[in-house]
């Protein structure tokens, strides 16, 4: 199927005076992982909640796998599953009970539900903890159970809202493995994340969202190209020389130079290691004393800086209020 799994035009949602989502357009190809990248409060969760039929949009429209999210909400619900930002499992039940409950609600027979719960607990390495109450699970176990609950019946489309926020690196890798396995089976995934690295690892396409609108869109490669593939981070011995360093880097590397909160540090978008090295040499030749330097992938902050000309705003309203 080469058609679109999600097709949204002009989605809007306001909470009081806060315009959480302000005209979002999305086109998500079926069978792909599509990343929605943005800081807290950008409108990611609100967008997902509208697409998953939990919130009614104020304006705009969207079709999920061909079904209108308002007029045909029930049809949407029967082909999607949602893994929310808060773990969407019942803390007062055991892991096994959670899965049996979901399986029964999805129409499996009593025996079928028990069998399916057993399979999932095995596959997600939760068999030993199956009889324990979820409130005693670690963050990683809870997330795995959450995702297991989302694939009791394989959904055609899965919404994943910040699935790895707060996880240790190993649990995060496990979650990524699960996501990749789902895609192999043909499930389309809409992945909300604050981490560029995560979107980079998993997504075929990315929409960068800020203050309720999509500000950039493309494949990870396209986005990174537009931002600069990496960034040169420089820390000076003398903060007083930062102005000189900024001017030199701007001249040598072009584009935007970002002054870090650390008064001795600055960074510049830079795609090419040779040019970065040459710039550092030139700094030294100009008498600017460099304490450390490194070449890294751009952080979300830098993507934002490059796309919007300002740092990613930590907006307390929006998503928090939407939940």
């Amino acid at each position, binding site marked *: 199927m080469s058609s679109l799994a999600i097709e949204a035009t002009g989605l809007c949602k306001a909470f009081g005076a806060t315009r959480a989502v302000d005209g979002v357009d999305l086109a998500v190809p079926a069978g792909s992982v599509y990343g929605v990248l943005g800081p807290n409060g950008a409108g990611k969760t609100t967008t997902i909640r509208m697409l998953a039929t939990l919130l009614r949009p104020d304006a705009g429209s969207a079709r999920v796998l061909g079904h209108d999210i308002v007029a045909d909400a029930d049809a949407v619900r*029967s082909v999607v599953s949602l893994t929310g930002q808060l773990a969407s499992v019942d803390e007062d039940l055991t892991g096994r009970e959670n899965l049996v409950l979901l399986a029964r609600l*999805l129409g499996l*027979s009593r025996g079928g539900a028990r069998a399916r719960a057993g399979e999932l607990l095995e596959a997600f390495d939760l068999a030993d903890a199956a009889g324990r109450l979820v409130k005693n699970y670690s963050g990683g176990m809870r997330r795995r159970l959450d995702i297991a609950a989302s694939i009791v019946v394989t959904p055609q489309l899965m919404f994943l809202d910040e699935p790895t926020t707060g996880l240790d690196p190993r649990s995060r890798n496990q979650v990524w493995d*699960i996501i990749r*396995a789902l895609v192999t089976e043909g499930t389309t995934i809409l992945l909300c994340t604050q981490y560029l690295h995560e979107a980079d690892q998993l997504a075929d396409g990315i929409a960068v969202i800020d203050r309720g609108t999509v500000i950039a869109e493309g494949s990870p490669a396209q986005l990174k190209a537009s931002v600069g593939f990496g960034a040169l981070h420089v820390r000076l011995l003398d903060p007083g020389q930062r102005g000189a360093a900024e001017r030199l880097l701007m001249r040598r590397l072009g584009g935007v130079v970002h002054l870090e909160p650390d008064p001795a540090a600055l960074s510049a978008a830079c795609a090419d290691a040779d040019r970065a090295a040459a710039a550092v040499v030139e700094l030294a030749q100009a008498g600017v004393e460099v304490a450390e330097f490194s070449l890294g992938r751009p952080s979300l902050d830098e993507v934002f800086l490059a796309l919007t000309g300002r740092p990613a705003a930590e907006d307390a309203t929006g998503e928090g209020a939407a939940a």
Partner: protein
Amino acid sequence: MSTTPETRPTPAAGDQALSATPRPPRPSALSAALTFGWRGMLKVRHVPEQLVDVTITPVLFLLMFTYLFGGAVAGSTAVYLQFLVPGVLVMSVLFTTVYSGVALNTDMTKGVVDRFRSLPIWRPAPLVGALLGDSVRYLLAGAMIVVLGVVLGYRPGGGFVGVLAAMLLVVVFAFGLSWVFTTVGLLMRSPGAVMNGGFLAIFPLTFLSNVFVDPQTLPDWLRTFVNLNPVSHLVTAARGLMDGAATAGGIGLVLATAGVLTVVFAPLTIHLYRSRG
């Protein structure tokens, strides 16, 4: 976490993670509601202190009123116990209904409700099911009072059948009343607020009724209120059934009240649950 790198999940390799069978048809409304009822009962099993919390007060009232005031109010503790047990049974169950609202409010703050709401099921199922599960809780709360009463010397004139009929009537009324508290549960901001608001309403309704005293002894204005109070009608009907002297009119009035509460507040609760962002 107790996992080791060797046992890490490899869903890509295992066929266990992804279901091989196609999606079954959606469950019937009844099946979905009963599944949610089952969830409620699991919670009674895993968190029994929730039930104990709400029944401890009526138990204390039964003991305290019987032995402190029994002699003064009715001449002897034995006579007063005959009067009091059906009333405290009602009180115990009505207190438990407040908990339905608290539980729903707690649920709404958790992510699991989002999952329920994104499932293709009969939309009121989570609410109807929760109240069906709560009805079992109401029965347990009521049974606890009756058993304690019998241990203290209460002897129902209506026998076992009378007691059972009274408990069922009280549970039906509680089912209707709990829709009021689920509505409140969806309107209030925190479980604590629901608890406070709920008891602020349920305390005067149970105390300013015929649970503890015969209204004949009350001043006119208070007697008027007590006689209008639906809790009084429920106590009268339950007392009648347990004594073996119920009137069809009294029972009918209680059932009608429960019906009206359900018809008004169930759609309100369901609407709030659905529209909640």
